[in-house]
């Protein structure tokens, strides 16, 4: 029954009630939840009914590089290697040129970087392509630190013990400290600290021996051997420096300076000295 007609349209009773409900928080939350549930239901059952999402994702992950390659392939005009010495630079340029046949893309740049980092002398590398065909390779090179004599071969190691090269003979390696002994390559950092402590006497050292996997022996070119202690290494080195500084003339007659027990150093001579010799030099030896 509609007996009365109005010209000011008022909201219907249902619309009014729904509108009032809309101001209630619980109703809004319920509405959002229902919307989400319906959206998920519809998308699962209708929109993506015939699509295997797993297969799609797999396809994209496998084929994306191929798709991308066609879009961004570049030609190389110049290769710029920074932070490497000449030999390493040549090696890297050769590697980049050999890889260039495959074409480049952002995805390939990562692969190329991995290849460059596979070079033993390279510590870290980054590769950038510019649109004009320039390839910039930034490299942090590993520095040769010591030579490790192992299985009749000379291994050139960096500070972290990474083998940079292996050589048959010692030629050209005399500027690096020579290291012998089982598992000595694992103690490169300790050796470098030791070499630094020895200072100017480093040139008189023939090689450093890692003994019993616990302590160092220093073999001098004059066939003198210093047996350093396991614990008080700095003290041992100090005694060694004093010995070398003050008794250099005796060094040829002394075979071994045993500092393993730092409180009781033992000096072994090549031939026992005569009583006269001792008497003559007693005051000097006493310091």
């Amino acid at each position, binding site marked *: 029954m509609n007996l*009365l007609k*109005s010209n*000011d349209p*008022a*909201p219907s*009773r249902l619309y*009014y*009630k729904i*509108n*009032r409900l809309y*101001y*209630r928080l619980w109703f809004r939350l319920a509405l959002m939840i229902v919307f989400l549930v319906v959206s998920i239901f519809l998308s699962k059952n209708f929109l993506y009914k015939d699509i295997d999402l797993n297969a799609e994702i797999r396809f994209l992950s496998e084929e994306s590089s191929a798709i991308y390659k066609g879009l961004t392939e570049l030609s190389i005009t110049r290769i710029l290697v920074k932070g490497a010495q000449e030999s390493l630079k040549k090696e890297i340029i050769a590697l980049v040129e050999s890889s260039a046949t495959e074409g480049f893309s952002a995805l390939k740049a990562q692969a190329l970087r991995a290849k460059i980092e596979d070079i033993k002398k390279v510590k870290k590398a980054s590769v950038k392509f510019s649109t004009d065909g320039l390839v910039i390779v930034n490299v942090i090179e590993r520095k040769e630190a010591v030579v490790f004599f192992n299985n009749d071969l000379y291994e050139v190691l960096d500070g972290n013990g990474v083998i940079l090269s292996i050589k048959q003979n010692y030629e050209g390696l005399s500027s690096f400290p020579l290291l012998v002994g089982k598992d000595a390559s694992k103690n490169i950092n300790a050796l470098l600290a030791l070499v630094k402590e020895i200072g100017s006497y480093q040139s008189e050292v023939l090689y450093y021996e890692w003994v019993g996997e616990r302590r160092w022996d220093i073999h001098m070119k004059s066939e003198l051997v210093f047996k350093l202690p396991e614990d008080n290494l700095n003290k041992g080195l100090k005694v060694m420096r004093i010995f070398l500084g003050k008794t250099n003339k005796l060094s040829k007659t002394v075979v071994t300076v045993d500092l393993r027990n730092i409180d009781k150093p033992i000096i072994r001579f090549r031939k026992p000295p005569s009583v006269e010799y001792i008497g003559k030099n007693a005051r000097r030896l006493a310091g």
Partner: protein
Amino acid sequence: MRKLLQSQRQLRQKRFAAIKKGTVALIDLGSSKVMCLVVSLTGINQINSFSTGKSDRGVTFRVIGASTTKSRGIRDGEIYEMREAESAIRTVIQRAQKMAGCLIENVFLTFSSGTQKSTLISSSIEFIQREVTELDIGHALSKVNLVYDDLKREIIHALPVNFSIDNKHGYMDPRGISGSKLSVDVNIVSIQSDIIKNMVSCLNKCDLSLAGLALAPYVSGQSSLLEDEMQIGVVCIDLGASSSSISIFFRKNLIFSESIRIGGQHITSDIMQAFQISFLAAERLKVLHGGLMPANSDDRETIELPDNNTDLYADRRAITKSELLGVIRPRVEEIFDSLKTILDSSDFEFLPGQKVVLTGGGSKLANILDFTSIFLGKPTRVAVPMRIQGLPASAHGPEAAAAIGLALNLAQPQDELWDFKAPFEHEGDELIRRTWRWVKSNW
């Protein structure tokens, strides 16, 4: 008496609960428009009240939503068509809700009824010479002989307007004054109970809860009158669409209130009938060209009447302004004649203040100020309701006086009879009753 106190106190509790929630709607249910203001009760300040014996809490408010729509289903301040009135309320509530951005649950209502009746009743108690206490005031008020038909009339306001101690009058707060006889004058304002029932039913259908009620003449006066005017005595004439009301204030209290069932819509209806045009066209004619004071040029000034039908070949009619005034003025004279009769019967002329303040939509009629001052023989002014925070300037006309007054009344209500504790209400009973009410409302 007990029943009245209970029902009014329940309404008071609803009012406090609504204020606690922070947002309420104020609806002015007029015959020409329905206006809704949504107010956010932002702060609490202390106001002086002596009904509870301690400082009561008033509120500060800000209008956050306002809407107006054409009134439907309401005539002479009463609901005639429930569905239409309901749809009008739905319209304003929904718009105001949208503007305020929050849900409206509690509503304060104001309206003007042609059936309203104001009665001044006195009562007194005698006691041994001592200082008057709150209990004495409650005792005196409980002695008020409320002569009203419980089934047909409902008391809306019962305002204590004057206290006398030992025949000395004019006390506003008699506490602490020594004496042996306390008298109180209470202004009882009542309307037909059916009107309230219909309105509550209409609000319930709109999912709203009535939290307070005030009559438009009373709240219009509160928003339109100055404190000094209210202090020395003033009459506020609210010229509504279908009824015109009078409220007399003295010592800041409403001492008399009455209304007649003639208003601005009757003037429009007269124009409509006189010139045979549509109601809207007649209203437009009244607003744009209407007036009350004749001028020499009126006979020469012609007004083209809007065409009622779509016949382009029909002659366009024109009337002179004096013809229009000739229709408007007799009706306005009739309104003011009736109002004058009421004023004469109310003993207004014995008050120190003799000012007449016009408010309501009808006070916008041209030259009404001159007409009233000549007709009633008293100084007159047209009042604009005081500005309230958040209400747009366009809504600050005299037609919004009732809604704004309701907001002011909500913020700082005046103590009424039911705000005082009667001697038969013992503390223990009250506690049990409160507990029972709490249990009932929570389970």
